[in-house]
Protein backbone atom coordinates (compact mmCIF):
# COMPACT_ATOMS: atom_id res chain seq x y z
CA UNK A 1 0.00 0.00 0.00
CA UNK A 2 1.06 3.56 -0.65
CA UNK A 3 2.61 5.57 2.19
CA UNK A 4 1.92 8.91 0.47
CA UNK A 5 -0.59 11.01 2.43
CA UNK A 6 -1.83 12.70 -0.76
CA UNK A 7 -2.68 9.37 -2.40
CA UNK A 8 -4.53 8.24 0.74
CA UNK A 9 -6.54 11.47 0.78
CA UNK A 10 -7.37 11.13 -2.95
CA UNK A 11 -8.33 7.45 -2.56
CA UNK A 12 -10.55 8.02 0.48
CA UNK A 13 -12.22 10.95 -1.26
CA UNK A 14 -12.87 8.75 -4.33
CA UNK A 15 -14.38 5.97 -2.18
CA UNK A 16 -16.55 8.53 -0.40
CA UNK A 17 -17.87 9.87 -3.70
CA UNK A 18 -18.64 6.39 -5.06
CA UNK A 19 -20.34 5.44 -1.77
CA UNK A 20 -23.26 7.56 -3.00
CA UNK A 21 -24.10 4.74 -5.45
CA UNK A 22 -25.06 2.63 -2.42
CA UNK A 23 -26.97 5.41 -0.67
CA UNK A 24 -26.48 9.01 0.39
CA UNK A 25 -24.42 8.94 3.58
CA UNK A 26 -22.51 11.27 5.90
CA UNK A 27 -19.14 10.34 4.42
CA UNK A 28 -20.35 11.36 0.95
CA UNK A 29 -21.95 14.59 2.19
CA UNK A 30 -18.77 15.58 4.03
CA UNK A 31 -16.59 15.03 0.95
CA UNK A 32 -19.14 16.81 -1.26
CA UNK A 33 -18.92 19.92 0.95
CA UNK A 34 -15.13 19.75 1.18
CA UNK A 35 -14.94 19.56 -2.62
CA UNK A 36 -17.31 22.51 -3.12
CA UNK A 37 -15.34 24.56 -0.60
CA UNK A 38 -11.98 23.72 -2.18
CA UNK A 39 -13.27 24.41 -5.70
CA UNK A 40 -14.76 27.75 -4.56
CA UNK A 41 -11.47 28.61 -2.85
CA UNK A 42 -9.58 27.74 -6.02
CA UNK A 43 -11.81 30.09 -8.06
CA UNK A 44 -11.29 32.85 -5.48
CA UNK A 45 -7.50 32.43 -5.74
CA UNK A 46 -7.70 32.69 -9.55
CA UNK A 47 -9.92 35.78 -9.23
CA UNK A 48 -7.48 37.34 -6.75
CA UNK A 49 -4.61 36.64 -9.13
CA UNK A 50 -6.57 38.45 -11.90
CA UNK A 51 -7.11 41.45 -9.61
CA UNK A 52 -3.37 41.60 -8.90
CA UNK A 53 -2.17 41.21 -12.51
CA UNK A 54 -4.86 43.25 -14.25
CA UNK A 55 -5.70 45.80 -11.54
CA UNK A 56 -3.09 46.27 -8.81
CA UNK A 57 0.10 45.97 -10.87
CA UNK A 58 -0.98 48.27 -13.76
CA UNK A 59 -2.23 50.83 -11.23
CA UNK A 60 0.68 50.85 -8.78
CA UNK A 61 3.60 49.90 -11.01
CA UNK A 62 2.39 51.20 -14.40
CA UNK A 63 0.48 54.27 -13.15
CA UNK A 64 -2.41 53.33 -15.45
CA UNK A 65 -5.20 55.17 -13.68
CA UNK A 66 -7.84 54.07 -16.19
CA UNK A 67 -7.86 50.76 -14.26
CA UNK A 68 -9.83 52.60 -11.57
CA UNK A 69 -12.89 52.47 -13.89
CA UNK A 70 -13.31 48.64 -13.74
CA UNK A 71 -12.41 48.74 -10.03
CA UNK A 72 -15.22 51.26 -9.49
CA UNK A 73 -17.56 49.06 -11.53
CA UNK A 74 -16.52 46.04 -9.46
CA UNK A 75 -17.28 47.92 -6.25
CA UNK A 76 -20.70 48.87 -7.64
CA UNK A 77 -21.61 45.18 -7.39
CA UNK A 78 -21.49 45.58 -3.61
CA UNK A 79 -23.71 48.71 -3.65
CA UNK A 80 -26.89 46.86 -2.49
CA UNK A 81 -25.11 46.19 0.82
CA UNK A 82 -25.16 49.98 1.41
CA UNK A 83 -28.95 50.09 1.07
CA UNK A 84 -31.72 49.01 -1.30
CA UNK A 85 -31.82 52.50 -2.85
CA UNK A 86 -28.44 51.69 -4.45
CA UNK A 87 -29.61 48.43 -6.06
CA UNK A 88 -29.63 50.04 -9.51
CA UNK A 89 -25.85 50.61 -9.38
CA UNK A 90 -25.06 46.93 -9.81
CA UNK A 91 -26.75 47.02 -13.22
CA UNK A 92 -23.81 49.00 -14.65
CA UNK A 93 -21.07 46.36 -14.12
CA UNK A 94 -23.50 43.59 -15.14
CA UNK A 95 -24.41 45.45 -18.34
CA UNK A 96 -20.71 46.02 -19.08
CA UNK A 97 -19.85 42.31 -18.76
CA UNK A 98 -22.93 41.29 -20.78
CA UNK A 99 -22.08 43.84 -23.52
CA UNK A 100 -18.50 42.62 -23.79
CA UNK A 101 -19.74 39.01 -23.78
CA UNK A 102 -22.30 39.68 -26.52
CA UNK A 103 -19.67 41.43 -28.67
CA UNK A 104 -17.17 38.60 -28.24
CA UNK A 105 -19.90 36.04 -29.00
CA UNK A 106 -20.71 37.69 -32.33
CA UNK A 107 -16.99 37.95 -33.20
CA UNK A 108 -16.27 34.30 -32.56
CA UNK A 109 -19.56 32.75 -33.69
CA UNK A 110 -19.81 34.48 -37.08
CA UNK A 111 -16.46 33.18 -38.29
CA UNK A 112 -15.85 29.95 -36.37
CA UNK A 113 -19.32 28.52 -36.01
CA UNK A 114 -21.09 29.94 -39.03
CA UNK A 115 -18.79 30.78 -41.97
CA UNK A 116 -16.24 27.99 -41.37
CA UNK A 117 -18.92 25.34 -40.80
CA UNK A 118 -20.78 26.42 -43.92
CA UNK A 119 -17.62 26.42 -46.05
CA UNK A 120 -16.64 22.98 -44.67
CA UNK A 121 -20.06 21.66 -45.71
CA UNK A 122 -19.66 22.66 -49.36
CA UNK A 123 -18.09 19.40 -50.52
CA UNK A 124 -17.88 17.83 -54.01
CA UNK A 125 -20.36 15.02 -54.62
CA UNK A 126 -17.60 12.52 -55.40
CA UNK A 127 -18.31 10.01 -52.62
CA UNK A 128 -21.30 8.62 -50.76
CA UNK A 129 -19.98 10.07 -47.50
CA UNK A 130 -19.79 13.59 -48.95
CA UNK A 131 -23.35 13.29 -50.28
CA UNK A 132 -24.59 12.18 -46.84
CA UNK A 133 -22.73 15.05 -45.11
CA UNK A 134 -24.03 17.76 -47.47
CA UNK A 135 -27.62 16.52 -47.78
CA UNK A 136 -27.72 15.50 -44.10
CA UNK A 137 -26.66 18.99 -42.98
CA UNK A 138 -29.25 20.62 -45.26
CA UNK A 139 -31.95 18.21 -44.04
CA UNK A 140 -31.23 18.97 -40.37
CA UNK A 141 -31.15 22.72 -41.11
CA UNK A 142 -34.54 22.41 -42.81
CA UNK A 143 -35.90 20.82 -39.62
CA UNK A 144 -35.07 24.07 -37.77
CA UNK A 145 -37.21 26.28 -40.07
CA UNK A 146 -39.98 27.49 -37.80
CA UNK A 147 -40.67 30.94 -39.28
CA UNK A 148 -43.06 29.92 -42.06
CA UNK A 149 -45.46 27.11 -42.90
CA UNK A 150 -43.39 24.30 -44.43
CA UNK A 151 -44.12 23.04 -47.94
CA UNK A 152 -44.42 19.32 -48.68
CA UNK A 153 -40.82 19.12 -49.88
CA UNK A 154 -39.59 20.90 -46.76
CA UNK A 155 -41.64 18.55 -44.55
CA UNK A 156 -39.99 15.54 -46.22
CA UNK A 157 -36.57 17.09 -45.82
CA UNK A 158 -37.29 17.90 -42.15
CA UNK A 159 -38.34 14.28 -41.59
CA UNK A 160 -34.97 13.08 -42.96
CA UNK A 161 -33.35 15.71 -40.74
CA UNK A 162 -35.07 14.24 -37.69
CA UNK A 163 -33.49 10.85 -38.46
CA UNK A 164 -30.05 12.44 -38.74
CA UNK A 165 -30.60 14.31 -35.46
CA UNK A 166 -31.55 11.06 -33.72
CA UNK A 167 -28.38 9.37 -35.03
CA UNK A 168 -26.37 12.41 -33.85
CA UNK A 169 -27.91 12.28 -30.39
CA UNK A 170 -27.27 8.53 -30.19
CA UNK A 171 -23.63 9.01 -31.17
CA UNK A 172 -23.27 11.90 -28.69
CA UNK A 173 -24.82 9.79 -25.96
CA UNK A 174 -22.47 6.89 -26.71
CA UNK A 175 -19.51 9.26 -26.69
CA UNK A 176 -20.60 10.85 -23.39
CA UNK A 177 -20.96 7.44 -21.74
CA UNK A 178 -17.54 6.30 -23.02
CA UNK A 179 -15.96 9.54 -21.77
CA UNK A 180 -17.39 8.97 -18.30
CA UNK A 181 -16.34 5.31 -18.36
CA UNK A 182 -12.76 6.28 -19.21
CA UNK A 183 -12.82 8.62 -16.18
CA UNK A 184 -14.16 5.75 -14.06
CA UNK A 185 -11.39 3.47 -15.34
CA UNK A 186 -8.91 6.24 -14.46
CA UNK A 187 -10.16 6.38 -10.85
CA UNK A 188 -10.18 2.57 -10.49
CA UNK A 189 -6.70 2.41 -12.00
CA UNK A 190 -5.53 5.06 -9.50
CA UNK A 191 -6.95 3.06 -6.57
CA UNK A 192 -5.53 -0.31 -7.61
CA UNK A 193 -2.22 0.91 -9.01
CA UNK A 194 -1.17 3.89 -6.89
CA UNK A 195 -3.03 3.27 -3.64
CA UNK A 196 -3.04 -0.47 -2.94
CA UNK A 197 -0.41 -1.43 -5.57
CA UNK A 198 -2.48 -4.36 -6.84
CA UNK A 199 -1.72 -3.51 -10.49
CA UNK A 200 2.03 -3.57 -10.92
CA UNK A 201 2.34 -3.28 -14.71
Amino acid at each position, binding site marked *: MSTDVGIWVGALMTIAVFSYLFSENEFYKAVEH*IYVGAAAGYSI*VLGFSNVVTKGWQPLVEGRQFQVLIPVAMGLMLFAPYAGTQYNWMRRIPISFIVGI*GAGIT*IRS*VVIEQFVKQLSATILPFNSVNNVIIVLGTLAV*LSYFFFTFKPSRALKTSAEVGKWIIMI*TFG*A*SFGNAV*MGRISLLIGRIDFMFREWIHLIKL
Partner: protein
Amino acid sequence: MKREVPIIVTTVAGIFMILEYFHNIPGLANGAKELQNWAILVAAFALALAAINLAARHLRNITARHQNAVHSGLLLASMFATVIAGIFFGTDARAFVFIFDNIITPCGSAFYAMACFHLASAAYRAFRAQSGQAAALLITGIIVMLGRAPIGDLIHPYLPKMATWLMQVPNLAGMRAIMISSAIGMIGVSLRIITGIDRTHLGMGQE
Protein backbone atom coordinates in the same frame (compact mmCIF):
# COMPACT_ATOMS: atom_id res chain seq x y z
CA MET B 1 -30.77 57.70 -15.98
CA LYS B 2 -30.94 54.54 -13.86
CA ARG B 3 -32.54 52.76 -16.81
CA GLU B 4 -30.68 54.30 -19.72
CA VAL B 5 -27.05 54.20 -18.50
CA PRO B 6 -26.83 50.37 -18.25
CA ILE B 7 -28.31 49.97 -21.75
CA ILE B 8 -25.87 52.52 -23.17
CA VAL B 9 -22.95 50.73 -21.45
CA THR B 10 -24.04 47.38 -22.96
CA THR B 11 -24.46 48.88 -26.44
CA VAL B 12 -21.15 50.77 -26.45
CA ALA B 13 -19.17 47.80 -25.07
CA GLY B 14 -20.75 45.37 -27.54
CA ILE B 15 -20.37 47.60 -30.61
CA PHE B 16 -16.77 48.41 -29.68
CA MET B 17 -15.85 44.70 -29.54
CA ILE B 18 -17.55 44.02 -32.91
CA LEU B 19 -16.00 47.04 -34.65
CA GLU B 20 -12.53 46.15 -33.45
CA TYR B 21 -12.80 42.63 -34.90
CA PHE B 22 -14.35 43.39 -38.28
CA HIS B 23 -12.67 46.73 -39.09
CA ASN B 24 -9.03 47.62 -39.09
CA ILE B 25 -9.32 50.97 -37.32
CA PRO B 26 -6.09 52.15 -35.63
CA GLY B 27 -6.27 52.26 -31.85
CA LEU B 28 -9.33 50.04 -31.56
CA ALA B 29 -7.30 46.84 -31.05
CA ASN B 30 -5.63 48.17 -27.90
CA GLY B 31 -8.92 49.56 -26.67
CA ALA B 32 -10.67 46.21 -27.12
CA LYS B 33 -7.87 44.42 -25.28
CA GLU B 34 -8.14 46.93 -22.45
CA LEU B 35 -11.93 46.44 -22.28
CA GLN B 36 -11.48 42.66 -22.07
CA ASN B 37 -9.07 43.14 -19.17
CA TRP B 38 -11.62 45.38 -17.50
CA ALA B 39 -14.28 42.68 -17.92
CA ILE B 40 -11.96 40.11 -16.29
CA LEU B 41 -11.38 42.54 -13.42
CA VAL B 42 -15.11 43.18 -12.91
CA ALA B 43 -15.73 39.41 -13.07
CA ALA B 44 -13.15 38.94 -10.29
CA PHE B 45 -15.16 41.34 -8.11
CA ALA B 46 -18.31 39.36 -8.96
CA LEU B 47 -16.48 36.23 -7.80
CA ALA B 48 -15.61 37.94 -4.52
CA LEU B 49 -19.29 38.83 -4.09
CA ALA B 50 -20.24 35.19 -4.71
CA ALA B 51 -17.64 34.02 -2.17
CA ILE B 52 -18.99 36.43 0.45
CA ASN B 53 -22.54 35.19 -0.17
CA LEU B 54 -21.43 31.55 0.06
CA ALA B 55 -19.51 32.18 3.30
CA ALA B 56 -22.40 34.18 4.81
CA ARG B 57 -24.90 31.44 3.91
CA HIS B 58 -22.85 28.72 5.58
CA LEU B 59 -21.92 30.89 8.57
CA ARG B 60 -25.66 31.36 9.14
CA ASN B 61 -26.05 27.56 9.09
CA ILE B 62 -23.37 27.25 11.76
CA THR B 63 -24.63 30.02 14.04
CA ALA B 64 -28.23 28.77 13.76
CA ARG B 65 -27.03 25.22 14.59
CA HIS B 66 -28.72 23.96 11.44
CA GLN B 67 -28.71 20.18 10.88
CA ASN B 68 -26.06 20.69 8.16
CA ALA B 69 -23.89 22.89 10.41
CA VAL B 70 -21.02 20.36 10.40
CA HIS B 71 -21.05 20.19 6.60
CA SER B 72 -21.12 23.98 6.37
CA GLY B 73 -18.11 24.06 8.71
CA LEU B 74 -16.25 21.60 6.46
CA LEU B 75 -17.06 23.69 3.38
CA LEU B 76 -15.84 26.90 5.01
CA ALA B 77 -12.72 25.20 6.38
CA SER B 78 -11.73 23.79 2.98
CA MET B 79 -12.56 27.10 1.23
CA PHE B 80 -10.50 29.21 3.64
CA ALA B 81 -7.63 26.67 3.64
CA THR B 82 -7.47 26.87 -0.17
CA VAL B 83 -7.73 30.66 -0.18
CA ILE B 84 -5.04 31.08 2.49
CA ALA B 85 -2.72 28.60 0.78
CA GLY B 86 -3.20 30.20 -2.65
CA ILE B 87 -3.15 33.88 -1.71
CA PHE B 88 -0.60 33.98 1.12
CA PHE B 89 1.77 31.22 -0.02
CA GLY B 90 1.23 31.38 -3.79
CA THR B 91 -0.19 28.94 -6.32
CA ASP B 92 3.12 27.05 -6.43
CA ALA B 93 3.07 26.40 -2.68
CA ARG B 94 2.98 22.75 -1.55
CA ALA B 95 -0.27 23.21 0.38
CA PHE B 96 -2.10 24.67 -2.62
CA VAL B 97 -0.75 22.03 -5.01
CA PHE B 98 -1.70 19.33 -2.44
CA ILE B 99 -5.31 20.59 -2.33
CA PHE B 100 -5.53 20.76 -6.12
CA ASP B 101 -3.89 17.36 -6.78
CA ASN B 102 -5.45 15.37 -3.96
CA ILE B 103 -8.86 16.94 -3.37
CA ILE B 104 -10.08 18.93 -6.38
CA THR B 105 -8.76 16.65 -9.16
CA PRO B 106 -9.75 13.22 -7.72
CA CYS B 107 -13.14 14.44 -6.48
CA GLY B 108 -13.87 16.16 -9.81
CA SER B 109 -12.97 13.00 -11.75
CA ALA B 110 -14.96 10.79 -9.37
CA PHE B 111 -18.07 13.00 -9.61
CA TYR B 112 -17.88 13.01 -13.43
CA ALA B 113 -17.19 9.27 -13.50
CA MET B 114 -20.20 8.64 -11.29
CA ALA B 115 -22.35 10.27 -13.94
CA CYS B 116 -21.87 7.18 -16.14
CA PHE B 117 -23.97 5.17 -13.65
CA HIS B 118 -26.67 7.84 -13.73
CA LEU B 119 -26.49 7.92 -17.55
CA ALA B 120 -26.85 4.13 -17.71
CA SER B 121 -29.75 4.19 -15.27
CA ALA B 122 -31.50 7.02 -17.16
CA ALA B 123 -30.89 5.28 -20.50
CA TYR B 124 -32.38 2.03 -19.17
CA ARG B 125 -35.55 3.87 -18.11
CA ALA B 126 -35.85 6.28 -21.06
CA PHE B 127 -34.62 4.37 -24.10
CA ARG B 128 -37.45 2.42 -25.59
CA ALA B 129 -37.42 1.56 -29.30
CA GLN B 130 -41.06 2.64 -29.65
CA SER B 131 -40.51 4.26 -33.07
CA GLY B 132 -38.01 4.02 -35.91
CA GLN B 133 -36.28 7.23 -34.86
CA ALA B 134 -36.02 6.14 -31.21
CA ALA B 135 -34.55 2.84 -32.44
CA ALA B 136 -32.01 4.78 -34.55
CA LEU B 137 -30.90 6.69 -31.45
CA LEU B 138 -30.67 3.50 -29.39
CA ILE B 139 -28.79 1.48 -32.02
CA THR B 140 -26.35 4.33 -32.81
CA GLY B 141 -25.61 4.77 -29.09
CA ILE B 142 -24.95 1.04 -28.65
CA ILE B 143 -22.73 0.83 -31.76
CA VAL B 144 -20.66 3.86 -30.70
CA MET B 145 -20.28 2.55 -27.14
CA LEU B 146 -19.28 -0.95 -28.22
CA GLY B 147 -17.15 0.29 -31.11
CA ARG B 148 -15.13 2.52 -28.80
CA ALA B 149 -14.44 -0.28 -26.29
CA PRO B 150 -11.97 -3.19 -26.78
CA ILE B 151 -14.84 -5.67 -26.52
CA GLY B 152 -16.36 -4.20 -29.72
CA ASP B 153 -13.53 -5.55 -31.81
CA LEU B 154 -13.96 -8.98 -30.21
CA ILE B 155 -17.71 -9.04 -30.93
CA HIS B 156 -17.17 -8.13 -34.59
CA PRO B 157 -14.15 -6.51 -36.26
CA TYR B 158 -16.51 -4.31 -38.27
CA LEU B 159 -18.01 -2.68 -35.13
CA PRO B 160 -15.19 -0.13 -34.46
CA LYS B 161 -15.20 0.84 -38.18
CA MET B 162 -18.95 1.32 -38.04
CA ALA B 163 -18.65 3.50 -34.91
CA THR B 164 -15.99 5.62 -36.62
CA TRP B 165 -18.17 5.99 -39.74
CA LEU B 166 -21.19 7.00 -37.64
CA MET B 167 -19.10 9.63 -35.85
CA GLN B 168 -17.46 10.97 -39.01
CA VAL B 169 -20.40 11.04 -41.42
CA PRO B 170 -24.01 11.22 -40.12
CA ASN B 171 -22.96 12.58 -36.71
CA LEU B 172 -20.82 15.22 -38.47
CA ALA B 173 -23.77 16.30 -40.61
CA GLY B 174 -26.06 16.55 -37.58
CA MET B 175 -23.54 18.37 -35.39
CA ARG B 176 -22.66 20.79 -38.19
CA ALA B 177 -26.30 21.71 -38.74
CA ILE B 178 -26.83 22.12 -34.99
CA MET B 179 -23.73 24.35 -34.77
CA ILE B 180 -24.87 26.51 -37.69
CA SER B 181 -28.39 26.80 -36.21
CA SER B 182 -27.09 27.63 -32.73
CA ALA B 183 -24.71 30.20 -34.29
CA ILE B 184 -27.66 31.98 -35.89
CA GLY B 185 -29.48 31.88 -32.55
CA MET B 186 -26.47 33.22 -30.64
CA ILE B 187 -25.94 36.05 -33.13
CA GLY B 188 -29.63 36.96 -32.83
CA VAL B 189 -29.60 36.96 -29.02
CA SER B 190 -26.34 38.97 -28.91
CA LEU B 191 -27.72 41.56 -31.34
CA ARG B 192 -30.92 41.87 -29.28
CA ILE B 193 -28.82 42.48 -26.16
CA ILE B 194 -26.49 45.01 -27.85
CA THR B 195 -29.36 46.97 -29.39
CA GLY B 196 -31.17 47.06 -26.04
CA ILE B 197 -34.20 45.06 -27.18
CA ASP B 198 -33.45 42.27 -24.71
CA ARG B 199 -32.96 43.67 -21.21
CA THR B 200 -33.66 40.58 -19.15
CA HIS B 201 -30.09 40.56 -17.78
CA LEU B 202 -30.88 43.92 -16.16
CA GLY B 203 -34.18 42.71 -14.73
CA MET B 204 -36.12 45.06 -17.01
CA GLY B 205 -37.86 42.58 -19.32
CA GLN B 206 -38.21 43.00 -23.06
CA GLU B 207 -39.57 45.81 -25.19
